[in-house]
């Protein structure tokens, strides 16, 4: 039996009004502008764009403000908005080799052509709270060097000549899109990468960490990490040629992994790949480690039964919007479900009590 229950409209309205007031906080304190969020909380904006799977810093800033800084709620808002946008098409794959690098480091090659460029990094800071930021501090201007004018080549390109690193098979195959067709297993690598890049940073980090701690250990080095802007080109049907329709900031990580060879592959270095919207370094490295762990089958490695090797486990649980939707729905009214459970437990208790009574009576009679 389905019982519809109505009511609570006024309570809901009032709750939302109070939410708006709480979101604003103390009105004697200046209100946050979207520009302030976009410019000064840019890494939060980046995370919302990456996991919301929509590159638009202004929208991400709005979502963060509306969600009171709850990033998963903000990602939810972006995902919902994204579904209302008509899809104009797909771009050509971005050329990360042409990236204008703000940061580019390699943990494996000290003297990589193009050099080790640190960029605006938290690395090497002491992680001590900076109380100058609590006051209105003037920021000294960043130093300038001689700008590099040529493109910075990928480091794996140098290893490729020696055939000592596995090459990526060139392809122009149209990739599957998990926003259009539900994900099925086994998934192709393009679908895995799409799923990982929009997956929850904490979850992907945890999975990657598990591989480092020994669950499907694959000895990853960061061959290269680069952050910067890439032009985005798309074929315009009306024009008959491709134009640059925009520019996006991305973080790319390539891991180089020790590989002793397998039944099908010679001993050589293998690769894991991470590419994420915005300056999202931790996520990008984690993505590369998990991508590498999930490639065990194509590389002829053994399935060690590790969670990070199980694509169904990883990909089915990495989406924080799916996860939060299912998790949080259990707080919504389940009165009827619960009523039937209650009836059931009462009945079982009644029967157990009756049985005990019967047994006691029989014992007394004997």
């Amino acid at each position, binding site marked *: 039996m389905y019982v519809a229950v109505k009511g609570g409209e006024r309570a809901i309205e009032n709750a939302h009004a109070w939410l708006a007031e709480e979101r604003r906080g103390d009105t004697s304190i200046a209100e946050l502008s979207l520009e302030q969020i976009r410019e000064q909380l840019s890494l939060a904006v980046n995370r919302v764009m990456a996991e919301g799977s929509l590159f638009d810093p202004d929208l991400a800033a709005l979502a963060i403000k509306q969600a009171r800084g709850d990033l998963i709620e903000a990602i939810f808002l972006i995902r919902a908005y994204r579904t209302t946008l008509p899809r104009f098409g797909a771009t050509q794959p971005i050329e990360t080799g042409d990236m204008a690098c703000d940061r580019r480091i390699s943990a494996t090659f000290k003297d990589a052509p193009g050099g080790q460029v640190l960029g605006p990094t938290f690395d090497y800071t002491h992680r001590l709270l900076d109380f100058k930021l609590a006051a209105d501090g003037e920021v000294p201007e960043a130093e300038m060097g001689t700008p590099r004018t040529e493109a910075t080549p990928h480091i794996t390109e140098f290893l490729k000549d020696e055939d000592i690193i596995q090459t990526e098979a060139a392809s122009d195959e149209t990739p599957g899109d998990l926003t259009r067709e539900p994900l099925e297993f086994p998934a192709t690598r393009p679908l895995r990468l799409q799923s990982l890049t929009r997956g929850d940073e904490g979850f992907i980090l945890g999975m990657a960490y598990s591989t480092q701690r020994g669950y499907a250990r694959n000895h990853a080095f960061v061959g290269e990490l680069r952050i910067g802007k890439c032009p985005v080109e798309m074929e315009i049907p*009306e024009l008959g040629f491709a134009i640059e329709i*925009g520019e996006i900031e991305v973080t790319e990580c390539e891991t180089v992994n020790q590989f002793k060879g397998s039944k099908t592959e010679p001993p050589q270095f293998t690769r894991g790949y991470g590419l994420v919207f915005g300056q999202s370094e931790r996520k990008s490295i984690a993505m590369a480690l998990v991508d590498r762990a999930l490639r065990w089958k194509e590389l002829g490695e053994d399935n060690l039964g590790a969670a990070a090797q199980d694509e169904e486990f990883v990909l089915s649980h990495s989406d924080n919007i799916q996860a939060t939707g299912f998790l949080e729905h259990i707080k919504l009214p389940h009165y009827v479900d619960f009523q039937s459970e209650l009836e059931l437990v009462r009945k079982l208790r009644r029967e157990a009590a009756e049985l005990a009574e019967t047994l006691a009576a029989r014992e007394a009679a004997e």
Partner: protein
Amino acid sequence: MTDQIAAQDRKRWLSLLATADEGQLAQLWQDSGRAPAFRWLRTPEAGGVMVRGRAGGTGAPFNLGEMTVTRCSLALENGTVGHGYVQGRSKAKAEIAAKVDALMQTDCSEDLRAQILNPLADAQHKARTTRAAKAAATKVEFFTLVRGED
């Protein structure tokens, strides 16, 4: 051949318009004092495009995520068609881009190039060079300490 050069040139200005700072573009357009009569072929609409990357940077394409784009098309009175495709959700920016695209195919292209495209290109070049210069200042200069044993 000329068609190819023309297409190359058009690609360059459309790319410049797509990534231009909206405030600067609007100001330059206003300063140019142009208000051509036109009719809409497609009114401005905001949408998304799926941005792709490649596995390993060079391998098979995969879907990275979407970005917002606004597009429109219009025709000037003489029939010249202009298209605007710009990053983000600004209909006003797409409209200016389409008008500039159309006018760049008319006699006033050289004036427009000087009034709008060149300043946009200069601003972009300056912004890129500044970032590249800041990045260059963070490049590590390694030095090796000479050790005692030989």
